[in-house]
């Protein structure tokens, strides 16, 4: 029940944003929400399966370039192009997932990085197709389906992004709460044991990598038509690090945390970049501080404080305090 109330408040609140926000702010808000989707998609791997992907930018770039090419060449209605871009990206992610899940831990991180770099190199290899270092400019946002022109305006696009954010959040949430999600948790805690229980852990890992890339590509597919261009910047490996930071600082393994982390960071970046050029210095220090001192992230801190307050006094120790670590 609490969840339903929270969700309803969030939806209503989000829908009211365009009424109160100045137009220029809306651009940043849309970008922040897209990054929220992107960070959440990585959380499926990092937080729920403990597979550290250092090449998640590949998902973003694949989605962005697919939707850009579809819109440029076929001029199809925007929602169709986005859906199709996600499908194409997930198909491309399938062999990637097959190779990467042969390994785990550090090797997995490096393999995903290698695939992302391969994608980056391919952009330059197929210049006539991808525009090389110039990228693709002038991506249209065609009307439709049924002549709907809503998404051609910024406010309409905002609602589209909000819809995608809540939709993919609910999908991811039911995914991690399903029996499938329990097996993922088993892999996270002890892969050998889970395999011994009779689960084909590699197949589960493959599936979650593809799903994570799918949701990540949704973020990219939303970004390219919004910005109107796609450039190799969208495939640059530092983005993978940035989104990982958002997941960790927001709170890995909570879905909501990474969304908040993504939104928070894009806002901060936009606000701070104007007043100080020390931004990366602060950004890096905050990140190290979180990894060292609060690995559960912002949302983890919030929920544990709330739970502690909710628990009636004398009802026994908090389950998280059993270790005696936080006496």
């Amino acid at each position, binding site marked *: 029940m609490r969840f339903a109330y929270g969700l309803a408040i969030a939806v209503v609140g989000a829908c009211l944003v365009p009424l109160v926000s100045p137009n220029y702010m809306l651009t940043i808000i849309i970008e922040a929400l897209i990054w929220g989707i992107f960070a959440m998609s990585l959380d499926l791997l990092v937080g729920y399966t403990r597979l550290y992907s250092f090449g998640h930018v590949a998902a973003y770039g694949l989605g962005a370039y697919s939707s850009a090419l579809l819109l440029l060449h076929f001029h199809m209605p925007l929602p169709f192009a986005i859906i199709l871009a996600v499908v194409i990206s997930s198909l491309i992610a399938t062999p990637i997932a097959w190779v990467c899940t042969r390994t785990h831990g550090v090797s997995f991180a490096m393999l995903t990085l290698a695939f992302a770099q391969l994608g980056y190199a391919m952009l330059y*290899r197929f210049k006539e197709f991808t525009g090389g270092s110039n990228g693709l400019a002038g991506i249209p946002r065609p009307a439709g389906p049924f002549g709907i022109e809503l998404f051609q305006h910024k406010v309409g696009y905002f609602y589209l992004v909000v819809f995608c954010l809540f939709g993919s959040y609910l999908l991811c949430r039911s995914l991690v709460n399903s029996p499938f999600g329990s097996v993922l948790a088993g892999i996270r805690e002890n892969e050998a044991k889970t395999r011994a229980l009779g689960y084909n852990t590699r197949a589960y890992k493959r599936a979650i990598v593809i799903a994570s890339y799918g949701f990540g590509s949704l973020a990219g597919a939303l970004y390219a038509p919004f910005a109107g261009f796609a450039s190799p910047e969208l495939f640059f490996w530092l983005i993978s690090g940035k989104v990982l930071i958002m997941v960790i600082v927001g709170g890995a393994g909570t879905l909501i945390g990474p969304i908040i982390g993504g939104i928070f960071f894009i806002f901060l970046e936009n606000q701070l970049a104007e007043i100080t050029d020390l931004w990366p210095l602060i950004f890096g220090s905050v990140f190290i501080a979180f*990894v060292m001192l609060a690995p559960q992230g912002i949302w983890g801190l919030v929920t544990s404080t709330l739970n502690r307050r909710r628990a009636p006094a004398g009802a026994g120790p908090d389950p998280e305090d059993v270790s005696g670590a936080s006496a």
Partner: protein
Amino acid sequence: MNFAGFLLTQCLNALSQASILFFIASGLTLIFGIMRIVNFAHGALFMLGAYAGYTAVTVTGSFTLALVFAPLVTGLVGMAFERAFLSRLYVRGDGGAYLMVTFGLAVIMGEAIRLIWGPQPQGVPTPDMLRGVVFLLNQPFPYYRFFLIAIGAAAAIGLWQFLERTRAGLLIRAVSQNAEMVHALGTNVEYVRTGVFGLGCAMAAIGGVLAAPLVTAYLGMGSNVIIDAFVIVIIGGMGSFLGSIIGSLLVAFVQVFGAYYFPNLALAIMYLLMLLILVVRPGGLLGKEE
């Protein structure tokens, strides 16, 4: 065109390239072998080495002093970082935490270097003694690159002998095999770890100083080189010293000849090579699968 001369100079070019790559990759693989840490900041430390070398050359005018000063500074920075942050994470036993903390360090160092030395590239002149070219089969070849090959080979042999023959090298190899046992035998494993981390960082800094006359010291040289170094270490097998030599050679030859014969595919070939090796041997050429 003189094909034999071309081939010879290209091979020598690749060898000199491999030498610089080796300085970065060997440190990376050494640190991984002992501590199971993938040091994302290794590229940034390489860059710090190049900038520190630039300062040493402009102040003292001596390239040799730069080759001493830069690794010293960078090694100390690395050791301080290891003591302050990484050593507190050992108990957690989570490889991801190392990756993230060192990534944070890479971001901070990149920015700190920009604040200290400014955004414009800083050229380091080739030392006077090594200026000029020699003609090999009518093809010009710079002396400096011969120097790179020589110093790379010397470092590879020196480091190998250090690991194989000295007591400190013995300790390092022992810690990489079973740290708990070494600890139980009365050695302070913490010191070994800090020392190895500093040594790895110092190696990267030497690579940075050596690369500076060729490419100047510029922001972003760290992020360019760290990817190459990762590829090398993965190809050779993480933690394998010999693997880092083989990987450096392979990557350098692929880069030099790939850039000539397949200019469009040069970047991709390196990653394809790596993927191929990983599919056949998930642990790299000489590595053990975890």
